[in-house]
């Protein structure tokens, strides 16, 4: 009997070992080309960029960086901007990479307060307007791009209804725009939050709640995500048209109109989507050298590169954002189809950090 036990256990072990061998075999086929050595050693010629899912850059541009500096870039993406920042904070004692891109002004205080970045004054910062340098005292972060969250409108709808599209926050609560607007849940969507911040900046701590009560009375619809608002509910986007969207107003980006036209043949005279330029909140995205980076020199080189013409002029079509460097030109699709936002609303990052949770809670009780 005893020997049977042992033999059974041995049999099990043999099985387990066989399985492990199979696994190891799988491991061989799973290693892919392109990325350098895994962690452990110090791959001095690799810079690891930690970012969110929306980071994008042309291959040729990244190749340019490698040619100029000798560094190859490994990109790690982790969820949306909020998730990526939180992961970076969670792993700050043992960072996953050298440089972080994608912390915006709504998240900046959280990142700085947690000591995520080391100071670095980028080359070329003198070409960046002072009003986007939100950490000008310490230079822990470098502004890279900006974008505006604005109400977009479906041109065809307003033309066919002989109705002037709204232009300002104040317009949105007028009766002629009743039941036309869809926005995003401020708890789950960054454009949704930015739109709320825009109203708070416009109407002040005391006034924004009254404004939202009127907006709700005027039939604003709330969905959870930008994808749902723009691709399903909005009647002006190509996807929304197919999905029979019935809202001609949506909270989206100033860059949505050009995005809507990219790849469309033949190019139309104007974008089917317009921008209500008096409803915008400016988001600025920053990059910083991660505290504890294995390759800080490489991180600094990459931040410098992000302020170069090459990178700045590649960004618009990759990430649908605007360059921050003076004199960087935008592609034609932006100049032809995009909208200029003369005076976007803004709020100081520390004010956002201080008020955000309260505002979100109040918003939930008013709107949902």
């Amino acid at each position, binding site marked *: 009997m005893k020997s049977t036990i042992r033999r059974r256990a041995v049999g099990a072990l043999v099985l387990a070992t066989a399985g492990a061998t199979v696994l190891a075999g799988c491991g061989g086929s799973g290693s892919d080309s392109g990325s350098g050595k895994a962690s452990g050693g110090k791959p001095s010629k690799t810079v690891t960029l930690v970012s969110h899912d929306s980071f994008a850059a042309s291959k040729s541009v990244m190749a340019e960086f490698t040619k100029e500096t000798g560094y190859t870039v490994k990109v790690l993406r982790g969820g949306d901007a*909020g998730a990526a920042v939180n992961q970076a904070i969670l792993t700050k004692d043992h960072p996953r990479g050298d440089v972080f891109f994608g912390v915006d002004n709504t998240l900046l205080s959280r990142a700085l307060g947690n000591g995520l970045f080391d100071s670095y004054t980028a080359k070329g910062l003198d070409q960046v307007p002072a009003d986007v340098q939100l950490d000008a005292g310490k230079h822990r972060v470098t502004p890279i791009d900006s974008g505006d969250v604005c109400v977009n409108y479906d041109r065809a709808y307003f033309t066919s209804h002989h109705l002037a599209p709204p232009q300002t926050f104040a317009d949105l609560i007028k009766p002629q725009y009743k039941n036309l607007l869809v926005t995003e849940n401020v708890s789950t969507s960054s454009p949704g939050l930015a739109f709320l911040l825009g109203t708070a900046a416009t109407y002040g701590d005391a006034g924004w709640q009254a404004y939202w009560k009127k907006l709700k009375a005027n039939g604003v619809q709330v969905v959870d995500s930008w994808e749902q608002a723009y691709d399903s509910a909005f009647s002006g986007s190509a996807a929304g048209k197919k999905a*029979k969207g019935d809202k001609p107003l949506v909270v989206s980006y100033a860059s949505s109109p050009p995005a809507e036209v990219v790849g469309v043949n033949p190019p139309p005279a104007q974008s089917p989507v317009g921008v209500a330029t008096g409803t915008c909140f400016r988001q600025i995205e920053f990059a910083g050298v991660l505290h504890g980076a294995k390759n800080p020199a490489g991180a600094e080189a990459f931040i410098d590169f992000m302020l170069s013409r090459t990178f700045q002029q590649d960004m618009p079509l990759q990430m649908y954002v605007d360059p921050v460097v003076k004199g960087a030109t935008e592609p034609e699709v932006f100049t032809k189809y995009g909208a200029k936002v003369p005076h976007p609303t803004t709020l100081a990052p520390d004010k956002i950090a201080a008020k955000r949770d309260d505002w979100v809670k109040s918003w939930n009780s008013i709107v949902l």
Partner: protein
Amino acid sequence: MEAGPANRKAGRRRTATGLALAALPLAFFAAFFAYPVASIVGRGLHPGGHWRLGRIGDVLGDGSVRHVLWFTCWQAGASTALTLAVALPGAYAFARLDFPGKRLLRAVVTVPFVLPTVVAGSAFLALLGQGGFTDSLFGVRLDTSVWAILIAHVFFNYAVVVRTVGGLWAQLDPRQEEAARMLGAGRLAAWRRVTLPALAPSVASAAVMVFLFTFTSFGVIQILGGPTRATLEVEIYRETAEIFDLPTAAVLTLLQLVAVVAILAVHAWTARRRESALRLVDPAGTAHRPRGAGERTLLAAVLGSIALLILLPLGVLAARSLDGPNGYGFAFYRALGSTSADGTFLVSPLHTVWNSLRYAAAATVIALLVGGLAAAALTRRSGRLMRGFDGLLMLPLGTSAVTVGFGFLITLDKPPLDLRDSWLLVPLAQALVGAPFVVRVMLPVLRAVDERLREAAAVLGASPLRVWREVELPLVGRALGIAAGFAFAVSLGEFGATVFIARPDSPTLPVAVSRLLGRAGEMNYGQAMALSTILMVVCAASLLILEYPLSGRTTPRRKDAPGGKDVRAAAQGLAPAPRANASRTAPEPSAVPEAPAAPARSESPR
């Protein structure tokens, strides 16, 4: 088990073997689930070295949290009941009836299971929302109603029931029920006394899995539930990934764990004596062409419900992927293949198909190894300890993906588990979800393998390994195929944990879809739909391939049994009658009241 020294010794022996087999699954579970989850919860409740347990009271005292917990539980319960009601007749049809295209359809009904919710959710919006199918036909809009959530949950989890229950049902010997009827039992009584008890364990297993999946539903709730409905999973995601209130997230995670443990405890308690040794036969011999009005009606109802619930939403997606900027065509697919200057992926979206397949292959191997060993250990029944182990392995199904993903990030970053930058991290996370499926599918079959067969082989001098190879493996081959298909599908569709640990430059298919959807513009949206359609095809094709070679070998092969059919029957001198009894004209009582083809889906942020 009756007392007696010999039996006690046998019991001890089985326990020892059980523990040996359980060692690897336990280690896997400890390293890749318990440790990461405990760490992330610790970050929230034990920051800076002192406990902040006061937060537990604060969070639990919050009325809105109780509301979320209540909604989470009841929608999961309702979704599970509805899924069983709709899918059990389907399980019967797939197991016992022959119809053209059955194999293909079985693969197709599994496709929803792997679809990213954001994609399937948009298909349901198109069907149930403004100007959609129900709106134009009946003037009914179901989006943001709880019905939309329930229907979507059935859509996603239909396959769970069909595969776990149907897999066993196909192998039950139909002649046992017939024997009962020959002895004078009515059709319904025979079914209730013979077939139902045999099926009970797998029905319970399927119910638990569907419950756990819907309990941790994320994308469906976000898209179809409107902004006012949230499950615990959604709240945990918000607190962790957006608001960054780790203490609250930790309390909610614990709450989720407690609820899941309670569910699993109930399941284990009711499952205690349900399993019995069954006679398993070759499924090829149990299915027959539908006979009589009853069976034909049932089959028609099943096919109708599949068409409405599954094929229609999938069709909507496929149609959208072809609805190009200049009329119908393959413009979006062509755009996918072009490695233009677009650097969103640094690889072409089509390359993500290859990434996904590679990850899925690795995840399937890990899940089969871990789940298979665990199931083998559990087969050697040994009391409470092992039942606890069984429940333990199910926990990952009921744990929020963001918790696991973030937990991986903060724990698997130092030797000996320095895996944070390794490609293995993704399949490991996926196997965590796949392994419980393997256990659930394998266990009823393994337990049903007649102990006497094993003992007979052992008495004849076969080593345990040989017993396993010659007796058990052929019998469980089919279940193995189903389990592998499940693990593969879970991996193909998994999104939640993957998005946090996606390796550089190798996004999986669902991650690529979500990146495309996150960008405005017709081409991006169209490519997302095209990629989703490719995901469906890849999934269906993989399942067909995975299950094909395994589906034939289900009985111990004997030289004298051509085709491996009904070996024992032949041995017993009974003619292996193809069950053509002309008396089958009365309506077949179906396992459950035939539900009208209504509702269906689930997911953690997959």
